């Protein structure tokens, strides 16, 4: 079963076409890594999936059900409101710059979603928050404020916050790009754990080592298009297009 599937999605910002007929499928349990040069539209693709951006045209399916069909910038078909809300909650999102809520402690950040959105009892939300913080190795920071944490720790909290909503897929937009090099490892190792526990993941990253080791499939994007798609071996050892060859030569 596919968790997310897109059909010919396009996105324009004014006259600039940032996504050009993107067809992407992420199946249950799969780890898909998107690579590509800056400006390729990787972030825009992820943001379109969880409607932080509205696509200009195309279809998005969630768990094989039509989520949204858009033509010429107008939503023509969409899930019912409640269904749509539930579908959006199936997607956890981790941002490059964390975006933790600075006015809340680490624990409050993680339990905010379960408590206010899912409206589960406070004790249960706390239990869930603490067990997730344990999972990302930050139990002892539960009562600290985000500003007192390192970037790597903040990103692990952000992962826990997304996981707290019990999503079916996790979207990561360059989760380690804003980190000092020595902090990248701790975040990647949390992501590897997640992958090994069977979480479906769609990651934009420049960490080629992670892609090689963890990805089931690597997608290469440039100029708003998916130019290549395949196993890590296929993409890294035997890129077909000149753009992919050039990009890989610059990063490897």
């Amino acid at each position: 079963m596919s968790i997310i599937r897109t059909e010919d999605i396009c996105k324009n910002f004014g006259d600039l076409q940032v996504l050009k007929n993107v067809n992407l499928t992420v199946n249950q349990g799969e780890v898909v890594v998107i690579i590509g040069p800056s400006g390729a539209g990787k972030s825009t693709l992820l943001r379109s999936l969880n409607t932080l951006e509205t696509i200009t045209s195309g279809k998005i399916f969630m768990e094989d059900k039509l989520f949204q069909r858009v033509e010429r910038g107008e939503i023509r078909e969409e899930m019912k409101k409640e269904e749509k809300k539930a579908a959006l909650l199936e997607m956890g999102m981790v941002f490059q710059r964390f975006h933790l809520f600075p006015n809340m402690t680490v624990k409050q950040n993680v339990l905010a979603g379960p408590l206010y959105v899912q409206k589960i009892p406070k004790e249960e939300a706390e239990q869930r928050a603490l067990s997730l913080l344990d999972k990302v190795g930050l139990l002892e920071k539960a009562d600290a404020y985000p500003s007192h944490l390192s970037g790597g720790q903040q990103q692990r909290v952000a992962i826990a916050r997304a996981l707290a909503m019990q999503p079916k897929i996790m979207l990561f937009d360059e989760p380690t790009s804003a980190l000092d090099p020595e902090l990248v490892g701790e975040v990647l190792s949390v992501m590897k754990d997640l992958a090994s526990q069977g979480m479906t993941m769609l990651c934009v990253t420049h960490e080629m080592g992670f892609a090689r080791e963890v990805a089931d499939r690597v997608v290469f994007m440039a100029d708003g298009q998916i130019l290549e798609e395949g196993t890590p071996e296929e993409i890294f050892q035997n890129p077909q297009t000149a753009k992919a060859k050039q990009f890989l030569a610059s990063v490897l």
Partner: protein
Amino acid sequence: MNGMTRIVTWMPQLFKGAQTTIIITILSVAIGLFLSLFLALGKMSKHAVLNRLCSGYVFFFRGTPLLMQIYFIYFGLPQFHPALTIRSAFLAAMIAYTLNTAAYLAENIRAGIQSIDKGQFEAARTIGMTGAQTMRYVIIPQTVRRLIPPVGNEFIMVLKDVSLVAIIGLADLTKVTRAISSSSATALVYIPAMIIYLVITALFQLVFNKLEKKYSVYE
């Protein structure tokens, strides 16, 4: 009588005036603050009518003299319709200061909310918070901290603007001071009166510095 004893005999009257000044200041800024939150949200709303209404309100109250607003509310409105008569000068003053301060505070609140990183709204959305929940749990708490200095400023500005209420016959600290000065034929009373203003201002500053510290724990 020497200067000191004269000052002491004026004190009860001065305190009474100061009380009026303080009550109008605190009540109008507090109520104005509440009102300004809705004005700010209205000004940022995508709803065209609401947006124009709130923008127009802010433009009007910031673009006309406070003194004229007070005159208008107390003397002008009854001439448009008798039902708009406000008999109590105190109530008229309260309305004028509240409406006026709300316009200024609304601009501060709007600037405060708009200075918050777009990522905060997006992060809240990805965990499913509604717009109202995002405001309540994420944006407003962060804005409050940034609003403490401008709200403190507003208190101090209003404290002094309240001296205008003399024109509708209210006896605030300035009015009382002037009355004493003319009846006793000396300017001496201005000294304790100004000291009282300074003490009140200092107290406001103290409270707001404390609040700022308290709300800065997470920074």
